């Protein structure tokens, strides 16, 4: 029993932030609970039933849908369901098109009993004062799908958005976690994101054939961008290990250098001459609807977790951060370990940059501003100690998601932008404080 207790306590201290994250999710689910209306085929079935029930033989029905996948599904399903039972006319398009159709009804003197709308088309201002615009059609009833309640936060689309939005920061944070565990810091990652995005996009434009680039060409360009960032990481690592320059200063310098180089390479503009298929990595979703960037992120976390918990290198990384001298005296090649983490951090920042370039289908030197701070925040919120030696890979992932959930939740709640910064800052502080208090209790 005491052992079980200890295990639970250890789990709490390792992944206590998970509870904070879950708590946030619950809170946002409750407060974003809102009226939803069915869409697509489900909405069509509902309206078909209502029309058959409430309107007599062969009512005249105008179906109004936007020219967009889910509305078209609605229109097709409803037309099928009412075929033979009603006089149907379908409008697919903008409010202008609906207005024209109504104008024809009003001018022709044809009766119109029902205007069947989706959630969106039903809220067009055109229908709110129908009687005023078309007195002849004042008797027509506008039908919309009936509402039910469900949290905006918990919609599948929204949850996938959160994961996709945080993927870049989360990927970069893998490297940052290792750097911080060795007791270092890497401020250059934000600029490396921009550098990698620009290099990848520029290589695709200039060397791989621009908008006609092949997948292999794009992969090579991306690889080159990632390796270039790895090179920057190597340089930082060498400065830190060979000349004992503090990591803060080295990576601060490289942050400016990398940003400047990105601006020079891009000529200050965004590089956008890339094929449409370049968005595969950032916006595609091949694995059961899970975005590719999220899959990549999960794989990286799984790999990094295994590295940190199951290999000698992982143990050395902790040892270096815990006590550099002791690690050196016990035979760990500390400089190799430190070099490794900075190269790895550079590579992952480069990968993050490629993902961002893919998400935005262009590379611009303005990307990644302040990302080093968000990344560090994710790592620290995830329970890694800035003094080194302590930290968990999945803790960082939870930290990254905590930040993403807060940002997303506040956007969904219409929190004023300046207030969002205040809240985010306070939540980061609160999370860290909570972690400290719990750690103290566990000890």
């Amino acid at each position, binding site marked *: 029993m005491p052992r079980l207790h200890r295990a639970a306590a250890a789990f709490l201290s390792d992944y206590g932030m998970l509870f904070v994250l879950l708590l946030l999710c619950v809170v946002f689910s409750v407060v974003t609970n809102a009226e939803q209306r069915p869409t697509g085929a489900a909405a069509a079935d509902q309206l078909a039933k209502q029309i058959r029930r409430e309107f007599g033989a062969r009512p005249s029905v105008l179906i109004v849908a*936007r*020219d*967009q*996948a889910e*509305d078209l599904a609605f229109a097709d399903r409803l037309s099928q369901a009412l075929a033979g039972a009603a006089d149907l006319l379908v409008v697919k398009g*903008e*409010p*202008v*098109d*609906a*207005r*024209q159709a109504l104008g024809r009804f009003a001018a022709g003197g044809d009766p119109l009993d029902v205007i069947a709308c989706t*959630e*969106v088309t039903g*809220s*067009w*201002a*055109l229908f709110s004062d129908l009687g005023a*615009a078309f007195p002849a059609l004042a008797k027509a009833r506008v039908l919309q799908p009936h509402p039910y309640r469900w949290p*905006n936060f918990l*919609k599948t*689309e*929204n949850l996938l*958005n959160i994961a996709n*939005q945080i993927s*870049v920061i989360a990927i970069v944070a893998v490297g940052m976690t290792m750097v911080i565990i060795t007791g270092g810091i890497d401020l250059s990652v934000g600029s490396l994101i921009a550098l990698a995005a620009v290099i990848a996009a520029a290589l695709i434009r200039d060397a791989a054939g621009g908008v006609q680039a092949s997948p292999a060409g794009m992969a090579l360009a991306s690889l080159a961008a990632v390796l270039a960032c790895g090179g920057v990481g190597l340089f930082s690592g060498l400065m830190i290990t060979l000349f004992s320059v503090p990591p803060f200063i080295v990576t601060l310098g490289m942050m400016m250098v990398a940003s400047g180089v990105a601006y020079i390479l891009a000529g*200050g*503009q*965004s590089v*956008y001459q890339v094929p449409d298929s370049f*968005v595969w990595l950032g*916006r595609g979703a091949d694995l059961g609807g899970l975005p590719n960037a999220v899959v990549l992120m999960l794989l990286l976390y799984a790999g990094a977790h295994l590295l940190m918990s199951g290999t000698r290198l992982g143990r050395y990384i902790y040892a270096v951060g815990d006590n550099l001298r002791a690690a050196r005296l016990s035979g760990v090649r500390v400089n190799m370990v430190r070099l490794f983490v900075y190269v790895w951090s550079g590579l992952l920042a480069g990968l993050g940059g490629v993902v*961002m370039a893919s*998400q*935005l*289908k*262009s590379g*611009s030197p*303005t*990307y*990644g*501003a*302040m990302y080093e701070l968000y990344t560090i925040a994710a790592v620290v919120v995830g329970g890694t100690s800035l003094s080194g030696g302590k930290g968990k890979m999945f803790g960082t992932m939870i930290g990254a998601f905590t930040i993403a959930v807060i*940002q*997303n939740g506040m*956007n*969904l709640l*219409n929190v*004023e*932008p*300046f207030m969002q910064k205040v809240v985010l800052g306070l939540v980061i502080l609160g999370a860290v404080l909570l972690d400290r208090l719990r750690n103290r209790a566990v000890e």
Partner: protein
Amino acid sequence: MIGVSLLTLDNPFFKVIGNNIVREGSMSGYDVTVLSADKDVAKQSNQVKDFIVKRVAAIVLSPCESKSIVPVIQEANRAGIPVFTVDIPCNEPGVKIVAQIATDNEGGGKMAARAMIEALGKGGGKVAILHFPQAESCRLRVKGFTEAVAQHNTQNPGGQLRVAAVLDGGGAKDMGYRAAEDALQAHPDIRGIFAINDPSALGARAALEKAGKASQVVIVGFDGQPEGKQAIKEGKIYADPIQFPEKMGVEIVRAIVKRSKGEPVPPQTLIPTSLYKREDAMADPDLR
């Protein structure tokens, strides 16, 4: 609901646009969410994606970057959500923008040139331009300014204005200060400075004061932000073609409502500037 993502809310100009969209929107029965993209296009993309999930009735943007914002606008287009732009356009191929509302920046630039010509009088002289070439709106302002100057020069060969330097003033006080100092070093006989917005105009003013040339050089700014208007009242800036961000906010909501009613919406609405000089500042109830 209307989702609005503006370039930045640090600049009062956008804050006023946002506030007016909120006010006018609520009168037309819309909830309005105004977000600041903090000039970060990735952040703006995420905000637009959140709007799409929230199934807003319309999206209003002032894009941080017209090229990189294309994919999410296309996403909104595919979701059938109408997109409007305010101040900064997005004229890229493959995106559908219902309407663009902006200041007539080119006309404003011409207005600034006329003010400069008037202030310098018959003698003419050298002028410097503090540019912010990254922004399309500022390129149009400078285009209007130089065109009007060129036209003046052909009509008045005696009192020519010569654009001696075009420097990047960054649209900000600190950059404007440095750029104006450099311009004064290179051309000590400069008689006028046209700055593409108030912050860079005020930066230029600080440089002139430091160099002891404040009384010899005329500054014409742009925008009409409160701080700029105050400076005009104190005679620090000669004049501003002023913009009407409140009108932009109102026009955006009108365009949204018009579209929703199925009425035709003009693809572009340009709001003319008006010249604001010391007399206007003296009579301005907003300035104590």
